[in-house]
């Protein structure tokens, strides 16, 4: 698996990383054996950066990851988790909870240090608290050696400048905004992050199954016209003997300014397919056709979190 440097951190991440939200059963009920196998397959395929959160499965993702990683030497994988979001509507970015959250995640994951710790979905709270309280608390924990690099994640592109104009972070994670249909992360934010030396991570190349042949989750927030365009694209890709998911994944991985793209599945077969696709060339002709179909709905997204953070 090709690797790229993450900002100024010195970390080298695979271009495709393993997202552990699926093994927290965010998308469907998963057998434990299957979840554990997915992690092993991901590592075998070179997806050795693993991204999780205490929010995924309300702890289940971290717990299962901890089990799956037992016996795997710590230097064989890079581990990132998050803090501050604990349920759909439960957010706590206080300094006190930061310290607790780090310790709980370390315990569940069975390790003494986290490579990356992100403040999770910060657009749901008044973001000045992240600058004034959460990041300083994380820097103290970093000094104590429990986390190596810190940053934040979320959906609206506005969040990145709001935080990084005011304080130093090592890396950030955006999701569902660098895909076949929506490239706002690269259009609006990545050049800014690059100029500041902040590490750039992306998640959700399939935009929560929108850009796959799998049934859409009920909570998918994309507008109906976007879903309709995606169905047309899926049909076109199938007619060309390809797969919308393959094109979607290869598109996200191809941008050299994005260090890694995080994708998750609790199905080992999916992960093997992705790793194979990552090594195959992107079909530029098909991409041009697909982009033409998406053009009328390009960059259409949704609001997330507090209105003022969008």
């Amino acid at each position: 698996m090709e690797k790229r440097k993450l900002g100024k951190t010195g970390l080298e991440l695979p271009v495709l990383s393993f997202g552990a939200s699926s093994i927290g059963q965010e998308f469907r009920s998963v057998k434990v054996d299957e979840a554990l196998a997915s992690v092993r397959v991901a590592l075998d395929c070179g997806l050795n950066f693993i991204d999780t959160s205490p929010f995924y499965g309300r702890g289940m993702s971290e717990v299962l990851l901890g089990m799956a990683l037992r016996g795997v030497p710590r230097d064989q994988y890079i581990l990132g988790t998050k803090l501050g979001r604990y349920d759909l509507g439960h957010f706590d970015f206080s300094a006190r909870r930061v310290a607790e959250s780090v310790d709980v995640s370390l315990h569940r994951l069975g390790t003494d240090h986290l490579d990356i710790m992100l403040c999770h979905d910060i657009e749901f709270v008044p973001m000045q608290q992240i600058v004034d309280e959460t990041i300083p608390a994380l820097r103290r924990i970093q000094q104590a050696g429990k986390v190596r690099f810190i940053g934040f994640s979320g959906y609206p592109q506005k969040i990145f400048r709001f935080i990084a104009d005011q304080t130093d972070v090592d890396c950030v994670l955006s999701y569902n905004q660098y895909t076949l249909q929506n490239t706002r992360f690269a259009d609006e934010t990545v050049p800014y992050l690059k100029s500041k030396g902040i590490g750039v991570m992306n998640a959700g190349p399939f935009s929560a199954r929108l850009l796959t042949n799998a049934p859409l989750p009920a909570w998918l927030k994309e507008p109906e016209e976007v879903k309709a365009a995606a169905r047309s694209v899926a049909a076109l890709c199938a007619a060309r003997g390809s797969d919308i998911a393959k094109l979607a994944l290869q598109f996200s991985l191809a941008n050299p300014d994005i260090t890694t793209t995080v994708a998750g599945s609790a199905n080992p077969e999916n992960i093997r397919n992705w790793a194979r696709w990552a090594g195959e060339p992107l079909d530029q002709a098909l991409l041009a056709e697909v982009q033409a179909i998406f053009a009328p709905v390009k960059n259409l997204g949704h609001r997330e979190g507090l209105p003022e953070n969008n």
Partner: protein
Amino acid sequence: MRLDSHQHFWNYDEQQYPWIQHGWPIRRSYGPEDLAPELAQCGLAGSVAVQARQSLTESRWLLELAERSPLIKGVVGWVDLRSPELPGQLAEFSPHPKFVGVRHVVQDEPDDEFMLTVPFQRGIGRLREFDLTYDLLVYPRQLMAAGELAHAFPHQPFVLDHIAKPLIRKGEISDWAATIRELAALPNVSCKVSGMVTEADWRSWQPADFKPYLDVVFAAFGPERVMYGSDWPVCLLAGDYGRVFELAQQYVRPLGAEAEARFFGGNAAAFYGLT
């Protein structure tokens, strides 16, 4: 370019410079015309002028001097880092090519953790957007907080002024040395070898008094993060410019020509972005 990385100017006024005491020989005005012969006799091409008053007027005045005097290669001014007006202040000064950094007189703040307060850190967090450095003016007891600050903003360049002013005249060194080493472990912090003679016995200091301190600083920061500063005219309290320069040069010369060139200008030019 050979440089003095730290000196001051003032139009003497009793109310604006209350720390300049009665009977001190520096109770008069100092401008670029006074500095020029001092730099010339030491083969230095220019200097960085550092704020001595905490006002926007001071920053404006130093920039006016810098516009008139080619000797002044850079200005470290003052802005109100804790003010909501800060972005406007930075937008006023930062377009000036010689405005290279800011400093707050933290050594006079009664709270040793002043640098860890939210309003101050909000201000520090804004500097990078304007490509500005920050000068740490602290006493040894404030070095822990300085380290926490520099750790919290790892992309922000900091320089420690006056090696944090250890009490050289009393030989106090061990606690200072330990915290200096911790601070120097952070790669975004440099150190000015300046202001030392006024921390020694003004009348009887000898070069040997400073060697243990210089050994600590050079070992901790290495040859790429140390820069010569005179702290003129304050240094005149304890010795003339030539003696202060000579003290530094005697220590650095045995380290080799490259280290000497870095110390007398190269590092300061790189840190402040001086041309």
